[in-house]
């Protein structure tokens, strides 16, 4: 009897260590069976995310805040000129983007919206996708929604693109002939060598990856994932990736925006 109890305790400890949650253990980081990547990290990594001082990604948030009020471009405007206080005007962006944009008749994501504002309304040059400026601005803007449950709209005009994103997620690709769903839907909690697989949720992006030692965009992560199954990655901002981004926002529905998260 005692031996059985010991076995159960050992098995439970192993499960918890392996990222399998006991009921109710993950609080806001789990909704039904959807779990944030936060729940798959080690204690040390979570500690770094939990504290805004310890979290190196906050350096990007600070830079974003600076850029927000910096005038740029021929029109002599800053983001602040139209959008005023980001904490108010941007507070739902992180929880709802990407959205359907009627002017381009497809989805637009945050990076694209920022560049659209810059080129069409500020008369400023577009920022490169993985540049410090664009990373800082997207991190700063999404950060305004921190704590808000993800709630992207996938019906109406967005539905067509949502379906495309879902199809992409389930489509095999690359020499390894794998789909996103294989790792992230069938095997989260399992291990790929020493990495614990997560559900591949996007609620913490842009994210400080310990591996990158800097903040990186969601599309950067997509490109890496595609390369890992030896598939040719799509371009940052491609239709494929923006549609996928909407599907992922739906997969993460209810999970809190954590931007900027800290992940491995």
């Amino acid at each position, binding site marked *: 009897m005692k031996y059985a109890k010991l076995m159960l305790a050992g098995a439970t400890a192993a499960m918890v260590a392996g990222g399998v949650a006991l009921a109710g253990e993950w609080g806001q980081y789990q909704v039904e069976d959807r779990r944030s990547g936060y729940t798959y990290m080690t204690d040390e990594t979570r500690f770094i995310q939990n504290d805004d*001082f*310890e979290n*190196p990604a*906050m*350096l990007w948030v*600070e*830079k974003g805040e600076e850029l927000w009020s910096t005038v740029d471009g021929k029109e002599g405007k800053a983001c602040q000129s139209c959008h005023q206080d980001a904490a108010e005007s941007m507070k739902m962006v992180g929880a709802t983007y990407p959205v359907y944009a009627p002017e381009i008749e497809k989805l637009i994501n945050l990076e694209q919206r920022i560049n659209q504002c810059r080129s069409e309304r500020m008369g400023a040059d577009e920022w490169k996708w993985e540049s410090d400026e664009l990373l800082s601005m997207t991190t700063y803007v999404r950060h305004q929604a921190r704590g808000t449950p993800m709630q992207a709209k996938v019906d109406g005009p967005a539905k067509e693109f949502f379906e495309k994103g879902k199809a992409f997620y389930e489509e095999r690709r690359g020499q390894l002939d794998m789909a996103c769903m294989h790792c992230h839907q069938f095997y989260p909690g399992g291990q790929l060598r020493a990495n614990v697989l997560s559900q591949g949720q996007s609620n913490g992006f842009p994210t400080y990856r310990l591996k990158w*030692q*800097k903040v990186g965009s969601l599309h950067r992560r997509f490109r890496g994932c595609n390369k890992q199954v030896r598939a040719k990655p799509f371009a940052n901002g491609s239709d494929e990736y923006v549609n996928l981004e909407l599907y992922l926002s739906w997969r993460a529905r209810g999970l809190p925006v954590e931007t900027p998260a800290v992940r491995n």
Partner: protein
Amino acid sequence: MAKPRVKAPSSVKKGQVFEVKCLVSHKMESGQRKDRKTGEPIPRMIINRFVATFNGKEVFSADWHPAISANPYMAFYMKAEESGDLELTWIDDKGEKITAKKSITVG
């Protein structure tokens, strides 16, 4: 190099030991990596010295090597007998400096 972040209490009791935390954005290029396209080694460029002074006197310092992670984080302790300025300096391989200052009142 970007602005550093410093966290330290604004007022402390005389002789009380308190923690100072700081973070600065820096690649800390180790010199071990190779350029993916050319195969050439990327030259080392790190912050190799960190100095904390209080009213001009050194209270803590560190020598860093490439094994210190990017965006180097440093937390240390100190105590103050009188009010004054805590000054932090980061020096890189080229001798370029970043500084940050924080006033601390001793009550």
